[in-house]
């Protein structure tokens, strides 16, 4: 064959391949579009064992795969879910829970009281995931017949019902049938941890059909789900582990993904918004962002310096330049949370007040000797802008700020001691449960040394007030006590409150109806991607 002949063969081969590949690809596209599936991306990998994970991706899985005693609502309250009825003793120490009858696990077994007891004991014993919510509070749990559970607390804990949202019930028999006997938990072996990495033992509306670590989690509708489905609820959801902007954009553009992750850059969200049929949805996530000031190191150990910094901060600059469209945080508590004081007034930018506060400080006139270090996790790019703004703002009143971003691991290590904790740390705090107490309690002395409290407040009076509030069972009374604490914290200003964090996603508004887009965001991690709150209409998708 001469040279031209060879060239001809090559060209023909290329043409044939490029015609064949779209065929293969078309089948791929059909595979996604044929059914009513919702594809989304988030933090990966999720730990689908409810006694192990607690991250955002894991929380989405728990909400959809498992059931809990109570279910969170968009106003922050809870309603009975697996519970038919809950009676709380007057001292707030005993919770008698009557379970619904006829609830089926994915394998067909009936969910009973011993499964609840098993799940609570399991999460407490393992101590990972949301275990920290129950270890200090739950003294004992027992069953009385197949549908009656009794939980006894160590001491009264007002927000206990809110924490029960994170107690997911596993099928005891199924887990025990799949334990590795060589585990760490005696007769319980490994408590099924190994098996539960890729399998579920839940009763939730969706059941895991395929978990490929580093690729995807596929969960399909559990047809026998006790609470039923709407005809247009997704048949399955596919959780993938990529947040690469270009990948997400291509997938959204090809309608291979219904909901993007929330960590895309503003530019990326802008590009996603331009795709036909794709809209952006924003809602308060319940997380708060602020600058935590070390109250034990000079000069931020002086309340007047802290207040001066709070007064000099350019809040509008942050809301316009760093978090466009976000909402201002004025106190320790996200205003999404029940129990937050809606009337509280925070610090506003005011140069005159900042200067006046500084004059009252013991460091006035010698601030040159006391530079302030500001630290944040290097992986968090947006925080750079806030740190620079803080630096520029502080400069107006003569406070020198050193920029000292660190890798997250180093930052965690640094904040473990008072001396190595920077003067100022930019941090986002997420709620552990859907109630104001979650934000208030981080000011307890016991939280010091963790990234959740780099202020090193260690104030016995505040500790006492917080314990008193948390131990108050009556909601109204407790909320009043929270309000007093919020005012007190504002007064001593250990934190500069910046942003009530918004969660933002791009989604296929053309054919996906999503509850949160209608303003029904739920202030508990994971529940905004609860598939039963979504309706999908693939026929509405334009080609």
């Amino acid at each position, binding site marked *: 064959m001469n040279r031209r002949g060879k060239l001809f063969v090559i060209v023909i081969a290329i043409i044939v391949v*490029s015609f*064949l*590949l*779209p065929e*293969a*690809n078309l*089948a*791929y*596209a*059909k*595979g*996604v579009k*044929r059914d009513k599936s919702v594809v989304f991306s988030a933090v990966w*990998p999720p*730990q689908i064992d409810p006694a*192990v994970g*607690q*991250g955002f991706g894991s929380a989405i899985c728990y909400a959809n795969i498992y059931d809990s005693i109570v279910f969170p609502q968009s106003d922050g309250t809870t309603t009975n879910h697996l519970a038919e009825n809950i009676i709380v003793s007057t001292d707030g120490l005993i919770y008698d829970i009557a379970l619904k009858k006829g609830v089926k696990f994915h394998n067909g077994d009936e969910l009973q009281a011993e499964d609840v007891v098993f799940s609570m004991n399991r999460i407490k014993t*393992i*101590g*990972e*995931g949301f*275990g*920290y919510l129950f*270890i*200090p509070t739950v003294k004992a749990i027992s069953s009385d017949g197949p549908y009656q559970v009794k939980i006894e607390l160590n001491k009264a804990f007002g927000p206990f019902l809110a924490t029960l949202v994170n107690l997911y019930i596993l099928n005891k028999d199924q887990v025990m049938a799949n334990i590795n006997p060589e585990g*760490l938990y005696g007769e319980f072996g490994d408590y099924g*941890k190994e098996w539960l*990495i890729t399998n579920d033992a839940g009763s939730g509306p969706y059941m895991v059909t395929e978990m*490929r*670590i*580093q*690729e*995807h989690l*596929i969960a399909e509708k559990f047809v026998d789900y006790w609470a039923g489905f709407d005809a247009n609820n997704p048949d399955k959801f*596919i959780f*993938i*582990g*990529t947040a*690469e902007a*270009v*990948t997400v*954009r*291509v*997938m959204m*553009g*090809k309608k*291979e993904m219904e909901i993007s992750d929330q960590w895309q850059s503003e530019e990326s969200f802008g590009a996603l918004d331009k795709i036909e049929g794709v809209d952006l949805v924003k809602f308060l996530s319940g997380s708060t962002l602020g600058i935590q000031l070390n109250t034990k190191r000079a000069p931020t150990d002086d309340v007047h310096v802290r207040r001066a910094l709070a007064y000099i901060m350019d809040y509008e600059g942050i809301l316009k330049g760093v978090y466009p469209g976000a909402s201002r945080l004025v106190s320790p508590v996200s205003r999404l949370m029940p129990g937050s004081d809606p009337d509280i007034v925070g610090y506003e930018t005011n140069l005159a007040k900042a200067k006046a506060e500084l004059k009252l400080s013991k460091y006035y006139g010698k601030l040159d000797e006391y530079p302030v270090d500001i630290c944040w996790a290097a*992986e968090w790019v947006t925080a750079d802008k806030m740190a620079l703004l803080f630096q520029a703002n502080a400069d107006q009143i003569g406070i020198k700020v050193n920029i000292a971003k660190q*890798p*997250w*691991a*180093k930052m*965690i*290590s*640094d904040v473990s001691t008072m001396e190595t904790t920077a003067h100022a740390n930019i941090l986002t705090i997420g709620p*552990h449960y859907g109630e104001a107490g979650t934000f208030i309690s981080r000011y307890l002395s016991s939280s010091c040394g*963790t*990234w*959740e409290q780099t202020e090193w407040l260690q104030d016995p009076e505040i500790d006492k007030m917080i314990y008193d509030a948390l131990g108050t069972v009556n909601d109204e009374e407790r909320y009043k006590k929270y309000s007093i604490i919020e005012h007190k914290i504002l007064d001593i200003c250990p934190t500069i409150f910046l942003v009530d964090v918004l969660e933002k996603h791009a989604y296929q508004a053309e054919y996906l109806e999503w509850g949160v887009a209608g303003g029904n965001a739920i202030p508990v991690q994971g529940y905004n991607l609860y598939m039963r709150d979504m309706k999908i209409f693939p026929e509405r998708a334009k080609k």
Partner: protein
Amino acid sequence: MRTLKFLFRRLALSLIVLFGLSIMIFILGRVVPGDPARMSLGANAPQETVDRMRQQMHLDEPIIVQYWYWFSGIIQGDFGKSLYTKRPVIVDLTEFFPATLELVIFSGLLMGLGGLFLGIVSTKFNNTWVDNIIRIVSYLGVVTPSFVFAIIFLLIFGYLWPIFPTMGRLSRYLSFPPNHTGLLLIDSLIAGEWETFWNGFSHIILPAIALALGGMSQEARITRSSMLDNISKDYILSHRAYGIPEKRIFYKYLLKPSLIPTVTVFGLDFAILFGNAFLVEMVFNWPGLSRYGINVMLQKDLNAISAVIILLGAIFVIMNIVTDLVVSFLDPRIQLAD
């Protein structure tokens, strides 16, 4: 005999290198800040739980003892548990390594054959417009990181002209064939699942090309310059004087010795592909070892980090030995024993 002796000596040296590497990564893993147990369990885990995990991981023991536990485990194929996936690291390696291996083999083939082809064409058409075009394309290939190619390919062939799938190894409507080798294409052929094979093949094309382009360009430049160096040498002139056909001179007497630098660089490039694949794997959601390696580093998952680095180190060592063998085959004057 000489080759065997060479192999034995190199393997012994490689073991020493890998042992040194193990000490280095172990120490580095312990020096960097952050408590692995705390990072695995989360900020809210009770201290008792963290302490228990530290005990399980022997983090509460002196560093020499820690190393001993870790090293003796490795020798038995036990790299410990991954804090990232919560399962034995060896299970992760057996799942993720074949995915990267498959990708790298494809990329390596493209890199080697493509580089060779472009280098030969460049030499043949030296200083013509063909050579100039290949030169420009090669320079672009060398200076552009593979993830940029990945993004461009994704946009062009995944979005604007969607002829290739862009996510993972296999479309979700297909199931993986029974696992024999972990290599999807081979396994699907063994199982006779042609649709799976074809689908898997269409998935690997974009990431493989994106990964290969840099090395391919480099190989093309090296092949060209090496061939042009040799083309004016006396032995080529004497072949011409003897009237040996030009084609034979070109492919037999010129190309073979000119391949030595190309093969040397190819060997290293091939090994480097394993480490460099991570961004391409991220972009294409390819569940491979490189992506796993990055994820475990971000999680400070010491067991997994060590396993990945040792595995990559072993690949480098093996590729170096293979390269030496191929070079000695190409030019027998190069004495292996020396």
